[in-house]
């Protein structure tokens, strides 16, 4: 439980790194590292794990840590996106939002009627904090790639929630979600390239009007 809490704590720290970084590659790296940490977690939760658990853990770690960031970085290169993040919500306010969100998540999780075996773990606060961070990144950043990272962190939060049910739901569901996610990012990578060619910009503010 202590090791798991340490990993979740690190993941929560990476949330704040993603909120505070001003370069796209560092946001992508933070998201990737968080994905790898999340991939390791099922191994710590399951005490007698078979090859399926190992397979899903490895797939999650590779998918979230290597494939998806690779696709995002490729999209960045292909579409010649500048590295600077343009924030709607400034870095300091979004960092403070994320920190208060994390503290609030810890406070809320204490008052939730959780199962006794989950009461001591950071899974629920970690999940809530990651989802909040995802929201802040989705709302507060201009560029499509950083919004994809926000979406990924949001999904990591949902994955943390999913780990609560690891005893009763098969990991197959997680594997399915991971596959969906990878395909989704793959498609986004292509779309980003197309948007860049059509509009010469990935600024989502310019993508609000429909025209023939």
């Amino acid at each position, binding site marked *: 439980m202590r090791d798991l809490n340490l990993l979740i704590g690190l993941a929560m720290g990476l949330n*704040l790194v993603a909120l505070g970084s*001003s370069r796209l590659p560092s946001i992508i790296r933070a998201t990737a590292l968080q994905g790898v940490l999340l991939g390791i977690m099922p191994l710590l939760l399951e005490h007698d794990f078979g090859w399926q658990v190992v397979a899903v853990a490895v797939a999650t770690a590779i998918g979230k840590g290597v494939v998806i960031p690779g696709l995002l970085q490729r999209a960045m290169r292909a579409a010649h996106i500048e590295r600077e993040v343009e924030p709607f919500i400034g870095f300091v306010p979004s*960092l*403070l939002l994320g920190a208060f969100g*994390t*503290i609030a998540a810890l406070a809320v999780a204490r008052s939730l009627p959780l199962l006794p075996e989950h009461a001591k773990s950071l899974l629920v606060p970690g999940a809530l904090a990651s989802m909040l961070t995802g929201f802040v990144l989705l709302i507060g950043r201009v560029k499509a790639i950083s919004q994809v990272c926000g979406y990924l962190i949001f999904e990591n939060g949902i994955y943390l929630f999913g780990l609560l049910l690891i005893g009763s739901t098969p990991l197959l569901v997680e594997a399915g979600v991971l596959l969906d996610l990878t395909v989704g990012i793959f498609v986004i990578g292509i779309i980003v390239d197309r948007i860049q060619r059509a509009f010469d910009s990935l600024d989502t503010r310019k993508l609000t009007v429909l025209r023939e």
Partner: protein
Amino acid sequence: MMIVLSFVARLAWWLLLAPLLPGIINKVKAWVAGRRGPPVLQLYYDLARLWRKQVVMSTLASPAFIVGPAVAWAAVLGATLLVPLGPAAGATLSFRGDVVLMLYLLALARFATTWAAMETGSAFEGMGAAREVTYAVLAEAAMIAAMLTLAVQTGSVSLATMLAPSVGTSAVLLAAGLFTVLLVENCRVPFDDPATHLELTMIHEVMVLDHSGPPFAAILHGASMKLLLFAVLVTQSVLPMGTYSRTMASIVLLVGVLIVTVGVGIVESFMARFAFRRVPLLLTTSVLLCVFALLVAWQGAA
């Protein structure tokens, strides 16, 4: 007799050892850059030279121009007397709540320096003072959060007992937070470049630009004592000093201070200073690190 001897020994540690630290930092920087660099004892030579020089005063300046550096030096020395040097040596003065006095003495030192800077009537000096105070707002918040963490952890508000045990899981957070505070409080690289002499970008250096002679020596010596104070604080708040034997604790403290100093030099060698608009972000991060360490301490206590 023993009391007098130990008092003199502690005073010697703070007064005589402090100017060594900037020398070590400069040596590390030179070594990384492949230069020979100034001698480690350079600051001692500088202080001796400055002490013999006469004071040049602006016609605008009031006596506060001289008093400011003196008050700042005395305040820093007072703060150092409150900081224990390991469980064996202890602090010269120790009472309930001495941590608050230490924080306020450091604030007083900063006030006196900025006050003396404003006395010169130079626009640059005012600018540097404004910057120094602006950064201090956030750095002090981080410092107070860090001290609160230690207080919650040990249930005491006396530095001697606060610094004795290790802080467990929050040690990493606290170490990172306090190290950042050390960098900003002592105007080291990601925040301020001690080597630069371009008025528009300096912070601490620009404040003391017009000082000369003995007051300037007091400022330099005070700054090096402050660096030593923070290095001692960082070392003791992270390591479980209370669990070591007497001699072991002293050795650990010395090695810890040396590691922190070399760490500052390495940071300085491999990092560029941040643009001004990025600095609040890093400072906020250090505040958050200390606040999260506080949270972990609270969770552990509850």
